[in-house]
């Protein structure tokens, strides 16, 4: 993404984002491949958060076909999605706390812990980043033996590293001074701009699709939704940091409560006539897929709508009046993933 700024000395007067450098035409290509062949391509826009996009694409197809997914498959899907949320938030906090602040310590912490989770993904799905694991009707494979024990051990390891991040960053006056009071987004502006995800929760609004319109098994687990009222960059960073802890607790509950049973129901290779839209809370915000079917095996229209594109209007709004030195921090706090916004 290119940001064109006009400045008055050190203050930014106007900022215009120029996006589209990764526009690969996913929506157009999706109309020419059948629904199963589309899955790897639909997941590529956000490669660090693959399972949320996958579920968001499969859900309208299941709504149109009228299939009920077995309970065990919903538990496995939710488990995969929450693990993916932890991995993606480790990536996001590592970038803003590390690279955009000018050092590499947080980058190394975040990426080192993320590698432990990628080993688990490889054990379950066969790939580090691109799972393509969720299909209409269920999931592709069952949990391998030894997976649950290794998962709980990894979560303990990640939780043991969190107090170090607390000491070095959350309570460090150098980092806090860099991020506090920078890029403040009030809750009225947040509603007007339509931002989603940690950006809207950092501005004091308690909005999370997992609580407002539960899907999967999120109505059966207990978790809190961290919100902060200040609306500055530090609040948005802390929302992600707290969500890591909440996701660890959700995964533990899912591992404890998962039932036995089938992992998939046979689904026909056809998209019935009709339209449906899904709402899934991915790590960067709410993701929607709007699918129009015409009775063939290829979808007639796939509209992908991701959290980063919805958060895009916040960038020129927050940069107005800020200093140039604050630009990396504001950009990092929005956790903008360019590939997801351009599709």
């Amino acid at each position: 993404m290119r940001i064109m700024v006009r400045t008055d000395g050190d203050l930014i007067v106007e900022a215009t984002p120029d996006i589209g450098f990764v526009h690969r035409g996913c929506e157009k290509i999706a109309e020419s491949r059948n629904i199963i062949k589309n899955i790897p391509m639909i997941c590529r826009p956000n490669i660090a958060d693959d399972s949320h996009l996958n579920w968001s694409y499969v859900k309208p197809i299941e709504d149109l076909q009228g299939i009920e997914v077995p309970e065990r498959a919903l538990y496995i899907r939710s488990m995969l999605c929450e693990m993916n949320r932890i991995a993606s938030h480790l990536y996001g906090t590592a970038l803003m706390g590390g690279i955009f602040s000018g050092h590499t310590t947080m980058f190394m912490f975040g990426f080192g812990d993320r590698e432990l989770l990628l080993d688990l993904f490889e054990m379950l799905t066969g790939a580090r980043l691109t799972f393509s694991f969720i299909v209409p009707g269920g999931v592709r494979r069952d949990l391998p033996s030894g997976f649950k024990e290794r998962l709980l051990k990894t979560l303990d390891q990640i939780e043991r590293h969190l107090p170090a991040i607390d000491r070095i960053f959350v309570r460090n006056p150098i980092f806090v001074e860099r991020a506090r009071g920078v890029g403040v987004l009030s809750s009225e502006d947040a509603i007007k701009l339509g931002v989603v995800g940690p950006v809207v929760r950092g501005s004091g609004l308690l909005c999370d699709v997992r609580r407002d319109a539960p899907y999967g098994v999120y109505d059966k687990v207990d978790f809190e939704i961290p919100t902060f009222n200040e609306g500055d960059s530090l609040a948005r960073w802390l929302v992600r940091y707290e969500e890591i802890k909440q996701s660890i607790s959700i995964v533990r509950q899912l591992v404890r409560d998962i039932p036995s049973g089938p992992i998939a129901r046979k689904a026909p290779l056809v998209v019935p006539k009709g339209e449906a839209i899904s709402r899934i809370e991915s790590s960067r915000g709410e993701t929607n897929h709007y699918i129009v079917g015409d009775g063939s095996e290829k979808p007639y229209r796939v509209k992908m709508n991701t959290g980063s594109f919805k958060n895009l209007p916040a960038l020129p709004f927050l940069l107005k009046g800020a200093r140039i030195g604050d630009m990396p921090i504001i950009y990092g706090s929005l956790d903008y993933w360019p590939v997801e916004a351009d599709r």
Partner: protein
Amino acid sequence: MGIWIGSLREIVEKVVDTPPLKNLVNWSRIYSLWPAHLMTACCGAEFGAMMGPRFDPERFGMQSAVGSMRQSDLLLIEGTVTKKMLKRVKVVYEQMPNPKYVIAMGDCACSGGLFHDSYSIINDLDKAVPIDVYVPGCPPRPEALLNAVLKLREKIRREEVYPK
């Protein structure tokens, strides 16, 4: 005077291009390959993982990407290059000082990959920028990328210091 300096330059080049000086210069180039992280699409996530603590490219001299093309000599094109991005890839390539090397990372940079029939991407990148090493994969594992860097080092070890 000009002819004297010209022939002096020829003599210096001939001396440097023979071992042991040639081996010394190439050795120093190999152990300080600084990458320019041109994250054009999703493969950048695996590049980030490669620069992380588990794979540790700093033991090969690849310091974490400093962000300025003027100080880097390895251009990693990670992911799909769209038509809008092509001009910027060329600008980055031309800004880098010699000697410079290019690695095309991922299926999309090699040949179009998953999006080969899209209306807005470039399938044949080697017509725009000369590529030294291709790394297939979608995305390639960090070990594969490190292997590509090792192959590039073999290539640098063999080449001349002042190519004609």
